[in-house]
């Protein structure tokens, strides 16, 4: 096991699972913000369906995280009664929806990563996580198909859609590097049989993304000034606003059942 590169965390597996769960919970909530607002009914349904899928993945993962943590917190406690600094999602997924191009580019960049990650985790040494990964992979493959087809059509569409999509890509690109960073938590869970080959992940992601960007006639932005911090709870100002909305009902009515 490699020497820790960050402050050691008490329970690296619980921490790692929270990262996986929080990515999907936050992105799922962002997509759900389109419900009733998408450009046409069919896309409204598609985005809402994907939101439900992602929140479903988050539910499974956070339930497992709570069990591994062993402090009596279930998936609801983790989702609705943690503050922003306790969230472990990558900065990419908390970025605001913006216009349709921003939403679809954000979705595409994450879907490509998520499909490749689940593919690796579905063979990992943790039986429960491997099962969730295999199940989630099927749905995320569909999400990737949806988002990449949209990126191609928006990029290779009108002058207006091309310009907006390139702008979205330029804005979001600096948040992608964080998805592939490794720290002490990754090293610790690798020692438990949950090893992700980050280099292979990155290389496959590059190939997949480059292919779609080429079909979309979009230009891959240069790698400059990557933003990071989400994995250790240092978030952009957007997460707090999102959580205030997302958590308001659960916090106003703690323990409510319906």
């Amino acid at each position, binding site marked *: 096991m490699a020497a820790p590169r960050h402050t050691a965390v008490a329970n690296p597996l619980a921490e790692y699972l929270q990262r996986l769960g929080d990515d999907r919970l936050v992105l799922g909530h962002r997509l759900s913000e389109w419900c009733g607002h998408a450009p*046409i*009914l*069919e*896309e409204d*349904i*598609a985005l809402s*369906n994907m939101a439900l899928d992602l929140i479903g993945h988050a539910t499974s993962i956070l339930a497992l995280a709570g069990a591994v943590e062993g402090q009596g917190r279930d998936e609801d406690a983790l989702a609705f009664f943690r503050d922003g600094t306790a969230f472990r999602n990558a900065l990419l997924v908390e970025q605001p929806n913006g216009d349709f191009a921003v939403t679809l580019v954000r979705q595409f960049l994450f879907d490509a990563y998520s499909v490749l990650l689940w593919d690796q985790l579905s063979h990992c040494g943790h039986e429960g996580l491997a099962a969730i990964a295999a199940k989630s992979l099927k749905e995320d493959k*569909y999400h990737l*198909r*949806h988002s990449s*087809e*949209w990126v191609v*059509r928006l990029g290779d569409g009108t002058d207006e859609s091309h310009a907006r999509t390139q702008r979205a890509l330029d804005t979001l690109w600096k948040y992608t590097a964080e998805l592939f960073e490794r720290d002490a938590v990754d090293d610790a869970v690798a020692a438990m049989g949950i090893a992700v080959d980050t280099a292979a992940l990155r290389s496959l992601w590059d190939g997949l993304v480059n292919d779609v960007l080429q079909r979309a006639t979009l230009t891959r932005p240069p790698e400059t000034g990557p933003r990071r911090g989400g994995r250790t709870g240092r978030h952009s100002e957007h997460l707090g606003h999102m959580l205030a909305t997302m958590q308001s009902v659960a916090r106003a009515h703690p323990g409510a059942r319906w």
Partner: protein
Amino acid sequence: MSTNDDSQWPLWEVFTQGARGEPFEHAGSIHAADAELALQNARDVYTRRGEAVNLWVVPSNAIVASAPSDAGPFFDPGNDKPYRHPQFYVAPRGVRIF
């Protein structure tokens, strides 16, 4: 409300197959800009709860339909021609009738 004929993508008819070997049945229609996205939209709207194992999408304007006014001559079942129905014929003894 003003007419918004130009605000919608083309209409597609969606057909779902419930299980392998079963006929495709009309499920409804969706809007989509092209065939691939029509499949995507159809999947989201009509198959997400396990209703289908296969999908067809067909541009609605590719469907040639009969007109309601054709109902009489086009679809007259000819009930006065009993020999069109299999029950008209007496099965010979020894033939198993299902």
